[in-house]
């Protein structure tokens, strides 16, 4: 349990550090060791991008974070901000009775903060955006949303605006370009976009020439062997992925990605993380919004296929860089998150937590796959893509946010889980949650719930912690 405590502490601290627009410490540490060697051109792109945009977040975030560390008001600030948000929610929803009860206890002591202060707090960068909680994501009229995207994308933009707009879902028509931007792959500066894309795509194909088609040493042979076992069985029910052309594209992407990351190498499940990028970039070339599931990829030109492959590679790389400790030896990143998830559920919903514990269900047994595959195995592919609109909009906060999504996901099934009377029933349900009929509206609810949890708990480590010793 000592370890659990330790992890808990570092978790809360990590949350404060993990602010959008700010490279994570992990990333910095890594770039010292390997990426300078492994990413000849690519490693500077994030810095390029930072320099190229007038992104106000960074400065203010740093100020905010150092302030937060050194002053005593930090807790009050975070709690009151959380409270503010919570109140908004409470007025609209009546679902979370237990938290509301607890809340009324704390609110009496915290409510004295002047209104002006609250407004100021609510604008602190790095805080979850107020917008989201004031209007929980709704299925906006797609026409008008598309227009808003088109306006914003046609100019040099700030990532912040794009995140705001994208968080609640991105129209298919602009999803490809938006994902490239959100991944930090495509520069926000309009004039630089074409040049960068051309160069990066070229880079990818140079890597393929140099590594994929080269003589492999034993490690790389192992990687290639494992990839060749996994790729054909990725999505057995979707015709697209049974096509040899598609499988070879995946094999190249995965091989290049893995061989350049000696700390992790290829880990089963990474293949599932390529899939959403692949599909989104493919959809850009599919006419008339036809379903991608049955599309024949050989209908595309070689040029088009090369674009899909290279862009999938780069976006995967950016995306997974933030969660690389999930895939290194012993998968400590995941083990840590499993503990955090358990801690979170214990605080949010003790009934459910006790029910699981009573039947000897451990969180590792079901949430390992959720975290390892970012829920891709638990959701239909179209839902995963919608979920990633939000993940990508969360930017560097995504690894933490994902934890709250997992918590919300577990809580979603509470009633079904409470009905299970034994270990076996619980685990079989948890391994096969019936999401087959889910659509993007369930995902919107899920991320809204996750957002709510994040606001309540991320910066308020004692919130609802009534049974702490």
């Amino acid at each position, binding site marked *: 349990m000592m370890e659990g405590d330790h992890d808990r502490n570092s978790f809360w601290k990590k949350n404060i550090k993990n602010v959008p627009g700010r490279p994570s410490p992990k990333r910095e540490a890594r770039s010292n060791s390997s990426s300078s060697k492994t990413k000849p051109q690519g490693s500077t792109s994030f810095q390029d991008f930072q320099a190229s945009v007038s992104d106000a977040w960074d400065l203010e975030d740093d100020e905010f974070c150092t302030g937060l560390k050194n002053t005593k008001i930090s807790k009050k600030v975070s709690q009151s901000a959380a409270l503010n948000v919570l109140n908004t929610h409470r007025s609209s929803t009546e679902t979370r009775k237990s938290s509301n009860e607890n809340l009324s206890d704390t609110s009496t002591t915290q409510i004295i903060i002047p209104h002006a202060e609250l407004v100021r707090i609510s604008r602190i960068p790095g805080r979850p955006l107020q917008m989201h909680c004031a209007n929980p994501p709704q299925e906006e009229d797609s026409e008008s949303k598309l227009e808003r995207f088109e306006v914003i994308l046609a100019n040099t933009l700030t990532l912040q605006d794009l995140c705001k707009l994208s968080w609640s879902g991105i129209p298919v028509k602009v999803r490809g370009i938006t994902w490239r931007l959100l991944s930090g792959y495509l520069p926000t500066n309009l004039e630089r976009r074409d040049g960068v894309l051309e160069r990066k795509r070229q880079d990818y194909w140079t890597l393929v020439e140099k590594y994929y088609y080269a003589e492999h040493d034993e490690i790389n042979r192992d990687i290639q062997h494992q990839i060749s076992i996994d790729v054909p069985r990725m999505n*057995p029910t979707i015709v697209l992925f049974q096509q040899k052309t598609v499988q070879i594209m995946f094999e190249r992407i995965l091989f290049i990605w893995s061989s350049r990351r000696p700390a992790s190498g290829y880990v089963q499940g990474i293949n599932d993380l390529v899939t959403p990028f692949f599909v989104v970039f493919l959809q850009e070339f599919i006419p008339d919004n036809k379903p991608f599931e049955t599309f024949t990829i050989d209908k595309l030109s070689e040029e088009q296929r090369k674009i899909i492959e290279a862009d999938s590679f780069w976006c995967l790389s950016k995306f997974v860089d933030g969660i690389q400790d999930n895939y290194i030896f012993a*998968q400590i990143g995941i083990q840590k998150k499993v503990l955090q998830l358990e801690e979170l559920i214990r605080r949010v919903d003790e009934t459910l937590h006790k029910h699981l514990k009573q039947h000897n269900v451990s969180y590792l047994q079901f949430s390992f796959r959720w975290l390892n595959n970012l829920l891709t195995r638990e959701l239909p592919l179209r839902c995963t893509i919608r979920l990633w609109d939000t993940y990508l909009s969360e930017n560097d906060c995504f690894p933490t946010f994902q934890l709250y999504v997992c918590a919300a996901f577990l809580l979603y099934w509470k009633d079904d889980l409470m009905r299970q*009377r034994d270990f076996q029933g619980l685990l079989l349900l948890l391994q096969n949650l019936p999401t087959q009929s889910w659509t993007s509206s369930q995902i919107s609810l899920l991320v809204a719930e996750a957002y709510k949890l994040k606001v309540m708990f991320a910066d308020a480590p004692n919130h609802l912690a009534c049974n702490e010793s």
Partner: protein
Amino acid sequence: MSSKDDEYDYLFKVVLIGDSGVGKSNLLSRFTRNEFNLESKSTIGVEFATRSIQVDGKTIKAQIWDTAGQERYRAITAAYYRGAVGALLVYDIAKHLTYENVERWLRELRDHADQNIVIMLVGNKSDLRHLRAVLTEEAKAFAERNGLSFIETSALDSTNVDLAFQNILTEIYRIVSQKQIRDPPEGDTIRPQNVEPIDVKPTMNSDSVRKQCCQ
């Protein structure tokens, strides 16, 4: 689940191990649900299923943990070995490498599983006759040398799948009932998150230099 499943005389935890792609998940789904998928997704971490069988008029409930074959998952999957009374060590009769790796898997069990675990060597995909790369006799001899039971199965056409599980569960039952040890109640053996590695050193009094190879 159904109340029928709640009643059992013995609960045995069994693990399925072996290289990636040898058909562990399909053996499990064939045994527990009578299902087979030619292209079933790779197992991430560990998956669980269960089925009860009758031996000597007793109901034996098998709690089977299907593990990921990839090396990277070893740290996670090894945690599930604890408390397991049986292991099906699976290789693919059409892929010699998966057979060669059986020794590594045995070492893995020696390091992480209970000392008395009953191990059955399973040559799966016996339907691939024209692609056979591992001779039955060779595997059988290997199993005998190492004190393992042995069977060849095909999850695809169902050959010997039930028999394999039946055999290993019966074998465990004989051992357990001879010892007159009642199995602990449900779930007691399944707490992988609390696993503390137990360092079982062989009580050897002489030089054990050869041990070095196992690190």
